[in-house]
């Protein structure tokens, strides 16, 4: 059974987004706030999936890119209060730079080695932030004076459409020629090279694109939350959440990542009364999906399977 075509998926996605745009009419600010965060996480997860699913690189440190972006934007605003868009641009740029600095050498490594390097990058960043408290606010976090808007609806719509556009771009990219080449490079670098593709160049690009969206989303989220802290942006557990979202949603599907993110956040919220048991249950469910439905939600929905 054939999975739906690119155009069709994009259309359905658009439909979903339009429907979601009307949520503010009746959903409370709390639901909106909830989904706002979920959407940003969706972007994080999609950016990660581009790297893992297509370039075939397991990045254990998505929060490195996010954190660099978020903190750059936040610190800048905290120190000089330039216009917000400038901070966001700076944050994004910083994330891309960080991505390059990390990727250029790291791409020489394979499998777990690459993963560990990215993980270490996160740990180092974390150490740096805690130690340089005067600049970063340290473990208690950084308060950002300005915010994009204080209206739930505005924030919600920004997040929603930001996610929609990022998703559209990343998804089309993944199904575009470039995405095809990327996938080939990720799957069999030798063959891709023999077909005349500069594998390193393409993987590097993937990393930069991933960094771009991670950084941008991170910066936007700072100006939504009005504060940045290790626990919200950089901690390993945040990275874990992102990775799990992507795998849950269905790796190598981009769009699936969003489903994963919404599921994780909605679930942990719905189960909040159970205290820490809630996380136990959420991660338990995730584990079951990983064990029984390796293709994730998206796989289940579209019946995409590798061979059959």
């Amino acid at each position, binding site marked *: 059974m054939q999975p739906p075509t690119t155009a069709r998926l994009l259309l359905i996605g658009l439909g979903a987004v339009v429907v979601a745009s009307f949520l503010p009419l009746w959903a409370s600010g709390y639901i909106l706030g909830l989904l706002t965060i979920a959407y940003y996480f969706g972007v994080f997860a999609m950016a990660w999936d581009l790297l893992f699913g297509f370039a075939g690189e397991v990045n254990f440190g998505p929060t490195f890119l996010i954190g660099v972006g978020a903190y750059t934007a936040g610190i800048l605003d905290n120190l000089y209060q330039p216009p917000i868009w400038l901070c966001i641009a700076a944050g994004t740029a910083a994330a891309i730079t960080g991505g390059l600095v990390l990727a250029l050498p790291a791409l020489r490594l394979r499998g777990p080695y690459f993963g560990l390097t990215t993980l270490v990058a996160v740990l180092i960043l974390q150490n740096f932030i805690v130690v340089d408290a005067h600049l970063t606010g340290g473990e208690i976090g950084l308060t950002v004076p300005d915010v994009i808007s204080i209206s739930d609806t505005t924030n919600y719509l920004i997040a929603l459409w930001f996610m929609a556009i990022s998703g559209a771009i990343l998804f089309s990219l993944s199904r575009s020629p470039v995405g095809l080449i990327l996938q080939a490079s990720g799957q069999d670098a030798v063959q891709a090279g023999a077909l005349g593709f500069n594998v390193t160049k393409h993987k590097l690009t993937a990393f930069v694109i991933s960094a771009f969206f991670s950084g941008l989303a991170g910066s936007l989220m700072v100006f939504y939350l009005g504060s940045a802290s290790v626990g919200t942006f950089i901690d390993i557990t945040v990275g874990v959440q992102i990775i799990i979202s992507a795998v849950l949603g269905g790796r190598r599907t981009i769009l699936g990542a969003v489903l994963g993110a919404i599921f994780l956040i909605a679930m942990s919220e719905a189960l909040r009364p159970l205290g820490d048991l809630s996380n136990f249950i959420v*991660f338990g469910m995730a584990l079951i999906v990983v064990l029984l439905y390796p293709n994730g939600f998206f796989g289940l929905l579209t019946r995409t399977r590798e061979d059959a």
Partner: protein
Amino acid sequence: MTVFWQILIDGFAISSLYALGATGFALIFGVSGVLNLSHGSLMVAAVVAAWAAGDSLHAGPYTGAAIGVAVGFSLSLLTYFVVVSPLQHTRKIREEEKEIFILTATLLWGIMIQQLIAYFYTDNAKTVAPIVQGVVAIVGVRTPANEIFTAIVCGLAIALLWLLVNRTRAGKAVLAASMNPRGITLLGVELSQVYVAVWAIYGVLVGVAGVLLGMFLGISSYSAGPLTASAFSIVVLGGLGSVPGALIAAYVVGYLETLTAYLISPAYRTIPALLLLVAVMYVRPRGLLGRR
């Protein structure tokens, strides 16, 4: 001068702990190619069990320690049978993708354990009632007896492991499996049994390491992540799958941290080790003694 001895002695204890923690981790990878990211959680579970035994059951330090090790052991086997083994045997996932799946699954599993501990015993740091107390002076350095005890037990445990692996048939088979699983199958050894054996050994090591950690330093459910990370980095530094490599790496990292704490500042304790790791990654991606 005393600083030198202090560094030498303190570094030794903490390094031995790292070594013990990482050995099992390396063994598992060597034999079955599995990176068990629930490592830290298993250790924490062992500690909390030992602590709880003393706290609520009023068990003596020995009983407490025993219970801790037992918990580590059983959890390790549980991890293998519930999480790892199913993924190794499933046909739903392409071989080349199994690595990431086992990583994710053990990660999730670890978090679940961690959450459960936090739920029942709060996330406070816990310490296991020490078996030995008091202070001994070595070359002018006043050293907690417990620190020496820790070093000794770690040494013993590692020595025992060495004997087991080099002096018994079963152990030899395990070692052989870590070098060439296919070869050992052709010699009539069931790999599945080897795996179980390895996870059992690993369980004991984790239990012991955890309990010692709990006596010497004390840990909380928050420590799970950092513990896994440190084992992971030590093993990679030593060269994935190489137990001797892991041992060496453990002492390198342990002493590097102690040196930093003494000579630079306790605030930067962990950073040099991380940088070293990255450096080694780039210069010698296989790690110090890496085979794979």
